[in-house]
């Protein structure tokens, strides 16, 4: 399942910024969006079981109605400082070939972002790999970073020595 790097970056550029519905969420002060078609469900943070020998951003696994699903902490994935979970903290379950959960600070809304309101990804970015950003959506004064969630979750192996 783990998409090879060529594949993931290929989709990101080939697909380009596409207008449509995005689920937006916050991570610190920044707002991100994920293509709504990738989202399976949004849930409270449940008990997560730690799994040994995994990358630091892998929080472990949890039980989604009988399925064991890996969970990635998006803050840790992007190298942002850790933050204690509160009642706003959510797991977004996305389908990136397999089902995976991502932990975000808070889920905002489902937003329609037309292609015209999407700028191409910036060529230089301090934190994120350029390949992971599909584009930057602008609605009013708000800026939403549209994530290629497949790239974010599949580019690196979850298991480390």
């Amino acid at each position, binding site marked *: 399942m783990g998409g090879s790097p060529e594949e993931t970056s290929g989709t990101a550029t080939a697909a380009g910024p596409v207008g449509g519905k995005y689920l937006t969420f916050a991570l610190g002060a920044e707002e991100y969006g994920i293509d709504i078609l990738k989202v399976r469900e949004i849930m409270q943070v449940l008990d997560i*079981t730690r799994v040994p020998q*995994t990358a630091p951003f892998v929080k472990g696994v*949890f039980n989604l109605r009988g399925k*064991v699903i890996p969970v990635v902490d998006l803050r840790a994935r992007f*190298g942002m400082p850790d933050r204690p979970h509160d009642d706003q903290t959510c797991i977004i379950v996305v389908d990136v070939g*397999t089902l995976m959960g991502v932990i975000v600070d808070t889920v905002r809304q489902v937003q329609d972002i037309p292609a015209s309101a999407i700028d191409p990804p910036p060529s230089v970015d301090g934190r*994120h790999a350029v390949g992971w950003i599909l584009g930057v959506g602008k609605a009013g004064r708000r800026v939403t970073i549209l994530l290629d969630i497949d790239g974010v979750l599949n580019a690196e*192996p979850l*298991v480390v020595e």
Partner: protein
Amino acid sequence: MGKRKESRQPLDAPDILQRLSTTVAAADADDLSRLAQLHEWCEALVQTGVTRPEDVPEAMTEAARGISRRLEALILGEAADAAEAFAEIAASITALAAGGCSADPAGSAVSAVAADAGDMPAATGGEPEKTAETMAASEPPASSAGLPSGTPALSPADPSEQIAAGAAPSEPASPEEADKAAAEAVAGYESVPLRLNPAETDFVKGFVEEAGEHIESIESALLEVEQNPEDRAKIDDLFRPFHTIKGMAGFLNLRDINCLTHEAETLLDQGRKGIRPITAGLIDLIFSVVDILKVQIAAVGEWVARPHDGVVPQPPVAGMIIKLRGVVAGRAAAPPAPTPPGSPGGKLGENLLAQGAVAPEVLEVALEAQRAEQPGRRVGEILMDMEAVTPRQVAHALRAQRGAEEPSAAAAPTQAARAAAGDQSVRIDTAKLDALVDIVGELVIAQTLVNMNDTVTASERLLKDVSQVTKIVRDVQELAMSMRMLQIGPTFQKMARLVRDVSRKAGKLVNLTISGEDTELDKNVIQMIGDPLIHMVRNAVDHGIEAPEARRAAGKPEAGHVHLHAGHQGGNIVISITDDGKGLDAAALIRKGIEKGLVKPGQELSEQEAFNLIFAPGFSTAAVVTEISGRGVGMDVVRRNIESLRGRVDIASEPGRGSTFTIRLPLTLAIIDGMVIRLGSERLIIPTIVIDQSLRPRPEQITVVQQRGEVLNVRGRLIPLIQLGRLFGLCGRLDPCKAMVVIAQCEGRLVGLVVEELIGQQQVVIKTLGERFKGIKGISGAAILGDGRVGLILEVGGVEELHNRRRGGGDEGVRPPARRRGSRPEPALAC
């Protein structure tokens, strides 16, 4: 089993004729499925004619046979002009149906076609020998283009000739005549390059799967026929799968397989009709046909795995087809084998006397022995032990004993019942069954949660209702589990074939007995247990059982005995392989172990530990590496396979008396019994089957050994301790004397796992962690615990490996170096 297509219940002839005429009206030259149906009805008619000659006039049977053959040729695309051929077939069928019992119109139609097609002689003759010749000669046109007729088909050494020679005295016709007929009738066979259409991959795949099952039933039926050569019902069992494979191969244009099965079928048909005695040579010949078929089907299977447009490579088959044709043609006119002298129902000994196989004095001794020492044994066995008679003679005498009894009559009802049951099964994708078992597992856990809910326990009424639901849920679970279960019988049957082959090759006499063949195992377990079982049975025959002379010298019966047993024991499935061979010699094993560097000189080993040495890689005690086994690659693989099924192997052995290998397996792969333990805030599951014991050590039991870390002394055994929490980064180092130690075994070694707390035993449904977590050491999967949290399931071998690696060195050499994950080049994405 995939026998649904076959109409096994003999239908009435008028019924069949009715169906034939309706189907033929709708059919057309390239409507393969209807042609196939017509073919099936014709065969059914022939079948009815054979089984109930009083209902179907012989002429009609023969006419149907002829039509069936022409249909076959048409389906295989061998008819010169398909439309014309079909028109003629249609005319014959209509005539056959209209004429009712009079076969005249059909007969003339057949003759007309035969004259037309040139190589399709009239099949209306009625006499069996004519039919047989027809079969040989009516082969596809390719044959005439192949080897010139009259090619010497029989090489002097082949079994077919032995068959012919063996039966020669009973043949009234002069041998030269028969030979001449054979040479004339036997046409050559040349394979044509096989091309399959990738669009039909699914059909072909279905064929490969079904054919595999049919081959299995052929093998087990063959062994039964070998035991009871006179049992017509058994020969029918043998005939049917051949016929089905032939039919399927025909539709898929697998000409080699089709022709090969056709010839084998013809031969068996002769046996079934009593034209040909079922001899050991014949059985051997059919066994070699099965072997060729297997290779052929495997070749097609390879194509299924990677379909392509090109020519599918096919293993050679022409030799066998020509050989079969030779046998069929050469012996077609032979009368039924004479019944051996002896009175039906008479005593075996008397019959043997009548045959002149045994002297009266010898028989007297044997009977005396039976009375005195072995009341349960049969005279035949004792005589064979005494080498007074050959098994063949006993078989003859037994045959005479059964005499005129009609064995098929007794077998018929069960036959019909089995056939009816077979038609009522459904093929289901195992993925669906797995999903069902998974979901039902969840249901059981959810149900447990409801049961423990305070609201429920507070209300008596609710409690009653809920417990009713609980009962139903449990039934559903049982049912879901049972759907994946298969009997181990067919797997054991395969071993029968193996024992037969291996013992012959090794020049040993071995009797295989089987018990508990109706024990049901999970389908996955059955699939994975096959190879280890083959290894172990082969070892039992090749290494365990001694050569006949050695056995005689040791005062044992010449024929060795291997017993396969399956059964339930304490929630596990137990499969045991027992032989009465020479047993394992612990001292020799230890010597060998020292030689191989597996044991340090002077090291004390218990008998069990010495036995376990045979599972070490590269270990073989056989003095001579035989063709069959003894290269020391078997047993380590056996143990690894069984442990991967979460099972274990134990050995019991007594020098000179034999050995028993016992495999213990979980009932199903979907659920395990586990010990839930706590480490920090996490809970893990240790499969109960690997747990030796759990204890809280006293301080004096713990020693710190240079290079090996902490070691626990349990009654003199030194067991390395593994700080599981620290190894997995779940908690810090634990003081074993304040925590608990779970002693688990892995490949015969013991390790002590230090855990914070034992929570309790529980059955859990195993879930995979998925592709993304592949390569994690020491974790085999996950399970949902009673409170809905995920618990990881421990894999002790991996834990030990990880532990040794972290220690850097130690006794790393014990295990092969860890497999590396395929390292993927990491993209430099993150800045």
